[in-house]
């Protein structure tokens, strides 16, 4: 007992006056905060982990956004490195030169890049990613195409070459790119007028035309996608760092009692937020690198990317690493602004004061105001998207949903009365604490709103791709073009197409041209008449003009109906295309070369009116049956076969493409059908649903933690309620109502905000307003499911809390 006096002489620290907090004080308080975030048992950890996951997702998305420029750049560099489109004409073969013919094709809506190559010298140039040119009949392929060929005999038939090697990373824009280079000995070089051969002579790769990597609409999609994914995460982070806020406030109050001043408590709170966000940075880096590997398996609009190409910009990365923790701290400090943590507890300012509406409505209105000037501006391929204005507008509009929400919750909940016990308990609780109720669901709200808007934009953009051709898909579904095939070959081509499986009907004709008979005598620079010449059988000609009676040997003059072409086409027709008159079939580049090949229009030539052909085009000129003209004398003929496919035959268009490929590198098959884009849209939609569902699951998790925290805080009250006979089901219902009411309000707002933003985006791309209510319903359904799940998950702990031993004081 005598030893006690030693304590009495414990040195009393001198009362420390208010002094500017030094680095050590900061370090101490931040560490203390981190200690609180990490300590505090399972609950504390759950909170910290949730914060870290939320911040991590945000960071991962930010890193992704930071990687987009680099990714696009690297794709563009690779594209340019193998491009030959701008290569100048090379007249003579050399040691380095080679012939190349583009044989790109489409397989089930996916682009398959392909080129036939033929070396002309000993040391020919090679495309990037290829070590050695494949010999005739051999090919090098991308891994994705090799994989595809293995499982698709039909495509293998089209690309029948022997697989002798792989195209390396350098030659591919993404891991999923379908691409091959095949050797061929059937290539001949075209002449200077781009005629008579089937291949181009080049001396190297990388002669490119610079182009924008993204069309304006895709650009817009990308921006909105990032906004829509980032914003809920941002809102979630905002909620996450406030998780356990009440408990934290009480803890800080206890510290205030033993002499912590207000600034110290702020620093400690900052420390708590800091730990979560720093862990979040780590998690974010992890998510990003993991997600980047996944990205290799994802293809959007034929675009895939190598993980190694998705490197975040260094400066942006550093910025993210600095800004994210600071933002978390800022959110915490801002959330503390409204509360005064006093030694005896927490005083919330403005309690009982009604929320004002005007500035809350101002936020979404400001967003709208930013978007309105952009209406109609994102149309066509060379429009410029103002990224900042668009993103800011979209963010404000979506964020506006969360600013309006607390007001709506307060206004609605304040008017609710009566009802059964469960309802009454829930409503009273909400009335007392509508701020946190609104905060709890704001993440779900923003996620739903964003998803709805994005879906609307996607749907319409996809619609654009589908309907842009204007083709009449009910008359034909594909065309086959074979340049440099004269009219004798035309019959053979048409026959080959006609006998292809799945082809119901085929209309083949030959496109050529004629000019005035004295063209050879004109001086260079003088205008020469241009008269299209279409050679096809009666059936085919009927598809292109109202010709009436027709028999072999018939000929027609069809005036142009194009109002914008001016008078000259029809004037030329009227002057030269008359029955019995002669036309010169030798039409080539100026100056005139060779000798005139004169042909006389049959005397029975009649006039006919043009009609829209199955391709969606209106043709004019001189239409003749093959019997009326000597096919071998036509200049630069192109055979065109318009194909009507049998809808009952699967893969009909793929068989047709095989036929086209067999016709040679110059033959082109283009599909008028639209089913391919639809599959892509479905893929995107699925991806978006998965993303939205994941975001909402995360938000649900934070909802659950908040809910459990609230329940635990009211443990004693619950036990008392049970003790005097409140039925447990009533309490369970009250928990459900407590979340369901704000969620329902949030979803209503989300639909309004989402449709609003969607409408604005549609207006920007110049599309008509259209809402897919199925999407709205499904998104709202996911939101509602989250609430239900949260309630169900919180029931077991609720049951446990309601045991009578809850009456014990802690």
């Amino acid at each position, binding site marked *: 007992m005598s030893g*006690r*006096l*030693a*304590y*009495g002489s*414990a*040195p*009393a*620290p*001198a*009362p*420390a*006056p*208010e002094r500017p907090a030094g680095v*050590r*004080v900061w370090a*101490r308080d931040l560490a*203390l905060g981190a*200690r*609180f975030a990490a*300590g*505090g*048992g399972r609950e*504390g950890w759950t909170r910290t982990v949730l914060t870290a996951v939320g911040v991590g997702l945000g960071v991962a998305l930010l890193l992704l956004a930071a990687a987009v420029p680099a990714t696009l750049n690297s794709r563009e560099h690779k594209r340019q490195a193998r491009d030959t489109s701008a290569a100048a004409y090379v007249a003579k073969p050399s040691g380095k030169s080679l012939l190349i013919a583009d044989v790109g094709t489409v397989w089930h809506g996916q682009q398959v890049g392909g080129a036939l190559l033929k070396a002309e010298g000993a040391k020919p140039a090679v495309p990037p990613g290829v070590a050695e040119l494949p010999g005739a009949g051999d090919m090098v392929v991308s891994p994705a195409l090799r994989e595809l060929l293995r499982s698709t005999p039909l495509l293998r038939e089209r690309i029948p070459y022997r697989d002798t090697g792989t195209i390396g990373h350098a030659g591919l824009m993404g891991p999923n790119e379908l691409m091959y280079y095949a050797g061929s000995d059937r290539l001949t070089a075209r002449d200077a007028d781009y005629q008579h051969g089937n291949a181009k002579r080049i001396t190297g790769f990388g002669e490119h035309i610079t182009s924008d990597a993204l069309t304006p609409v895709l650009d817009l999609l990308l921006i909105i996608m990032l906004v829509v994914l980032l914003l809920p995460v941002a809102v979630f982070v905002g909620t996450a760092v406030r998780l356990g806020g009440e408990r934290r406030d009480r*803890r800080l109050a*206890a*510290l*205030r*009692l*033993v*002499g*912590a*001043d*207000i*600034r*110290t408590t702020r620093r400690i709170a900052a420390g708590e937020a800091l730990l979560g966000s720093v862990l979040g940075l780590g998690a974010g880096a992890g998510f990003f690198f993991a997600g980047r590997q996944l990205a290799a398996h994802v293809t959007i609009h034929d675009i895939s990317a190598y993980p190694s190409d998705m490197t975040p910009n260094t400066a942006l990365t550093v910025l993210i690493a600095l800004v994210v923790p600071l933002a978390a701290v800022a959110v915490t400090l801002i959330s503390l602004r409204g509360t005064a943590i*006093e*030694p*005896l507890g927490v005083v919330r300012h403005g309690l009982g004061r009604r929320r004002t509406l005007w500035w809350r409505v101002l936020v979404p209105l400001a967003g709208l105001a930013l978007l309105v000037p952009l209406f109609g501006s994102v149309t066509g391929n060379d429009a410029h998207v103002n990224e900042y204005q668009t993103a800011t507008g979209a963010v404000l509009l979506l964020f506006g949903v969360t600013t309006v929400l607390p007001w709506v919750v307060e206004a609605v909940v304040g008017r609710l009365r009566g009802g059964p016990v469960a309802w009454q308990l829930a409503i009273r609780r909400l009335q007392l604490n509508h701020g946190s109720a609104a905060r709890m669901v704001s993440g779900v709200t923003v996620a739903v709103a964003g998803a709805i808007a994005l879906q609307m934009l996607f749907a319409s953009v996809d619609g654009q791709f589908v309907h842009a051709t204007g083709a009449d898909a009910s008359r034909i579904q594909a065309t086959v073009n074979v340049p440099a095939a004269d009219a004798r070959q035309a019959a053979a081509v048409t026959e080959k197409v006609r006998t292809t499986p799945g082809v119901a009907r085929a209309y083949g004709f030959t496109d050529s041209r004629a000019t005035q008979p004295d063209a050879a005598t004109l001086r260079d620079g003088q205008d020469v008449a241009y008269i299209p010449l279409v050679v096809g059988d009666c059936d085919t000609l009927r598809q292109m003009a109202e010709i009436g009676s027709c028999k072999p040997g018939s000929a027609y003059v069809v005036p142009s109906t194009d109002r914008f072409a001016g008078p000259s086409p029809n004037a030329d027709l009227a002057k030269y295309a008359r029955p019995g008159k002669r036309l010169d079939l030798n039409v080539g580049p100026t100056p005139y070369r060779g000798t005139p090949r004169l042909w006389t229009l049959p005397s029975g030539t009649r006039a006919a009116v043009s009609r829209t052909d199955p391709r969606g085009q209106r043709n004019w000129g001189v239409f003749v049956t093959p019997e009326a003209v000597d096919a071998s004398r036509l200049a630069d003929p192109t055979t065109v076969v318009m194909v009507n496919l049998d809808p009952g035959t699967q893969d009909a268009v793929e068989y047709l493409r095989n036929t086209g490929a067999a016709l040679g590198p110059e033959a082109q098959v283009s599909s008028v059908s639209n089913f391919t884009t639809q599959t892509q849209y479905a893929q995107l939609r699925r991806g978006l649903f998965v993303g939205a569902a994941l975001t909402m699951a995360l938000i649900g998790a934070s909802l659950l933690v908040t809910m459990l925290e609230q329940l635990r805080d009211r443990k004693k009250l619950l036990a008392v309620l049970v003790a005097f006979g409140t039925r447990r089901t009533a309490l369970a219902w009250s928990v459900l109502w407590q979340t369901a009411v704000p969620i329902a309000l949030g979803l209503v707002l989300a639909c309004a905000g989402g449709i609003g933003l969607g409408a604005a985006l549609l207006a920007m791309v110049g599309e008509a307003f259209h809402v897919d209510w199925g999407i709205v319903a499904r998104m709202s359904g996911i939101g509602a499911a989250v609430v239900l799940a949260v309630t169900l998950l919180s029931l077991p702990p609720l049951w446990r809390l309601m045991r009578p031993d809850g009456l014990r*004081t*802690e």
Partner: protein
Amino acid sequence: MTAPAEPLLTATGLRKSYGPTPALDGADFSIRPGEVVAVMGPSGSGKSTLLHCLAGIVRADAGDVRYDGRSMAGMSDGERSALRRADFGFVFQFGQLVPELTCLENVAMPMRLSGTKRRAAEKQAALWLDRLEVADVAGKRPGEVSGGQGQRVAVARALVSGPRVVFADEPTGALDSLNGERVMRLLTEAAHDTRAAVVLVTHEARVAAYSDREIVVRDGKSRDMERAA
């Protein structure tokens, strides 16, 4: 009894209202160094409010509190926080310990807030836990110890920084007789040894019997029983 000395903490004419009803209606108070003064009175009479005003936790609407010759009315939050840190200690009925920290860390907290290094603060805290006969709970969290142990930890925390005034508001309110006695004995002995004054709010006479002097508060008015007798 203490030798007559200058009062350490005095209050005159304190008024404080929460809404229309006054909690304090002209209360006076004074305490000398090392003195233990019991504040008694029916519940709701304003005892806790008086204590909060004295400790500078709550600002009175009218009247003045002087500590060590300085008026607390004019002090900033920072200055009052500093006072709480260095010159005052607190023991409440319950719930004043930080649940996330161990008992030892809780006791060390006031010293650490005053800038003492962790090691040194915790060493001192361990001594105090030992002295209050709760050395064995040092590593436990407040949720894991009994009410009596928790209160003794709270007393240790109140005394660790060598305060000149300890404010105790119903320190035994949640304890049984035996534990209550124990806490009171340890609190008053330790306060006596460190010459700390104790403002002891209680409604229990047996607890008040540990005091040197008694003040009764009724309807917000204080009554010095020494003068009445």
